[in-house]
């Protein structure tokens, strides 16, 4: 009767690791991902034609994806989980053709990843201003240089590998503007000595930048980007203030966990200490406040690929133990220790590279903050200051955060601007709403009955989509 034990949402390093361990332990696993290929962002796959020209990229990802498929995991690629049914457990899914599906299993593992945070500045909506992640994908997955003269800016260790990847495809990297001052001797540097592998990685990137004479400007940030109809010039503020000619600016201020599904499933969240955005409360194995829901990987808090894989594995082992499979306690202890250790490293990184939220105080009123709905900083400030509007009231009045990206690009900024204009506004994030991503109209319908008799959904018309309820 029951044909799925575990439903995993997200086919990145965390979801793949969870799927592999769960399937190898004898559980029936389905893995759902909105993209047509598994791998997520970190293990994003090259197209076979690109592999033929340039070889594989991150072969560990290829091995992981192959192992997951060989382990018998039902991989539902091209399936977008967009919401939660009224029963609070069934996930609503849009298939590749836009057809509605409903999925459910005994355990749900959310491995929904994260997206890059960019704090707005004047001109950030100009063509030629991109996230560091976009530039990295172009350089590594497509082997296409994003521009000729490229400036990187923002904060985070992520900017360094991106700069190196750009150099590898022939880009002239004019500089890396780091808003913080992490690369120096001090308490944090001493603490980082406990993570020699990570430190070696970082030293490797810095050595490459030195070899190519790429300056790293610390305590330096973007004031504005300008150009007629695409980027020409970037104005920097801070220690290395000045103007830089560039045809592309890659910018990133860390990452934001994708927590919408966890919130829609009613998992308890806590505000993250730096930005105040909700992060699901989860223990070392990813168990949330809901006994049947786990959250792993970057969705559980930004910690990097190694932590993501360990967390995915920890969740799978916990589910195996809970469903009566023999899991050697030593193995579980080892994985838990790894998760904890990598969490400490993540905390160290977070302390070194806090998002420079104070820069938002200085952006001019005419800065376009919500890119989709074209809402300016001034409109947000005025609205938030009026009648003590909180974040969601400000959103309602201005439409900031109501566009196609659903506030993913402007969310941090709108929240910070609101709190700055209205000190009484509570620390909150945009309400999680369905659909969590735009979906075709057809996906909102009631899923058709499953032809093969596998349908265990309720009949159409009772408000809960039926269809392939996997159970």
């Amino acid at each position: 009767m029951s044909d799925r034990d575990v439903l995993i949402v997200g086919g990145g390093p965390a979801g793949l690791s969870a799927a592999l361990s769960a399937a190898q332990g004898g559980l029936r696993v389905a893995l759902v991902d909105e993209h047509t290929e598994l791998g997520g962002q970190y293990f994003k796959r090259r197209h076979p034609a690109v592999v033929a020209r340039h070889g594989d990229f991150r072969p560990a990802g290829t091995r992981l994806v192959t192992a997951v498929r060989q382990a018998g995991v039902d991989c539902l690629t091209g399936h977008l989980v967009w919401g939660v049914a009224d029963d609070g457990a069934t996930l609503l899914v849009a298939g590749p053709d836009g057809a509605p599906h409903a999925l459910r299993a005994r355990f749900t593992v959310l491995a929904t990843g994260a997206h890059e945070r960019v704090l707005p500045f004047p001109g950030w909506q100009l063509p030629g201003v991109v996230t560091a992640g976009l530039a990295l994908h172009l350089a590594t997955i497509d082997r296409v240089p994003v521009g000729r003269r490229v400036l990187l800016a923002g904060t985070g260790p992520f900017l360094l590998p991106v700069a190196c990847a750009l150099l590898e495809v022939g880009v002239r990297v004019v500089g890396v503007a780091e808003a913080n001052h992490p690369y120096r001797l001090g308490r944090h540097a001493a603490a980082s000595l406990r993570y020699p592998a990570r430190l070696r990685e970082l030293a490797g990137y810095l050595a490459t930048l030195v070899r190519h004479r790429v300056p790293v400007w610390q305590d330096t940030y973007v004031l504005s980007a300008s150009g007629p109809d695409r980027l020409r010039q970037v104005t920097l503020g801070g220690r290395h203030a000045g103007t830089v000619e560039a045809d592309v600016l890659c910018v990133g201020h860390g990452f934001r966990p994708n927590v919408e599904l966890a919130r829609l499933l009613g998992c308890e969240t806590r505000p993250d200490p730096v930005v105040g955005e909700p992060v699901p409360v989860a223990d070392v194995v990813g168990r949330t406040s809901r006994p049947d829901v786990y959250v792993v990987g970057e969705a559980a808090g930004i910690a990097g690929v190694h932590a993501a894989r360990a967390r995915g594995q920890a969740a799978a082992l916990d589910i195996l133990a809970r469903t009566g499979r023999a899991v050697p306690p030593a193995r579980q202890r080892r994985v838990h220790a790894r998760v904890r250790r990598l969490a400490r490293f993540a905390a160290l990184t977070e302390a070194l590279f806090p998002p420079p939220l104070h820069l938002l105080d200085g952006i001019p009123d005419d800065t376009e903050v919500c890119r989709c709905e074209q809402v300016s900083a001034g409109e947000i400030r005025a609205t938030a200051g009026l009648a003590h509007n909180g974040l969601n009231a400000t959103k309602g009045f201005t439409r900031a955060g109501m566009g196609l990206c659903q506030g993913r690009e402007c969310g941090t900024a709108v929240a910070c601007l609101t709190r700055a204009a209205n000190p009484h506004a509570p620390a909150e994030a945009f309400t999680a709403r369905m659909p969590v991503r735009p979906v075709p109209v057809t996906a909102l319908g009631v899923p058709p009955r499953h032809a093969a008799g596998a349908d265990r959904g309720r009949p159409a018309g009772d408000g809960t989509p039926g269809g392939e309820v996997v159970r």
Partner: protein
Amino acid sequence: MSVHIHVDGRRVPVPEGISLAAALVGSGHWTFRRHAVSGRPRGPFCGMGVCFECELTVDGQPGVRACLAHVRDGMRVETCPPTDPDDPSGGDVLAAAPGGAGTTEEGRGV
């Protein structure tokens, strides 16, 4: 090794297997669309399907995210589609209205 796509009617050779966003950026096309309200040019931004800035019309289908699509020989790409003020959907197939109150067909907002 190379395939040809048609960008606003112009034949452009691009490496096989790369993303449409990479193909356009690599051939110097940065304006993917114009903002519906301001008409200002917009290009790709997030590169992972989140921001929807790189939407364009591919083989007649609007709303295709160039960062998630791969080039195909003979693919017809239209950037900056003319906006028809009489078409309330803007020719868009998306149902989204995301984030607004009661967004789905049953007003199933949270």
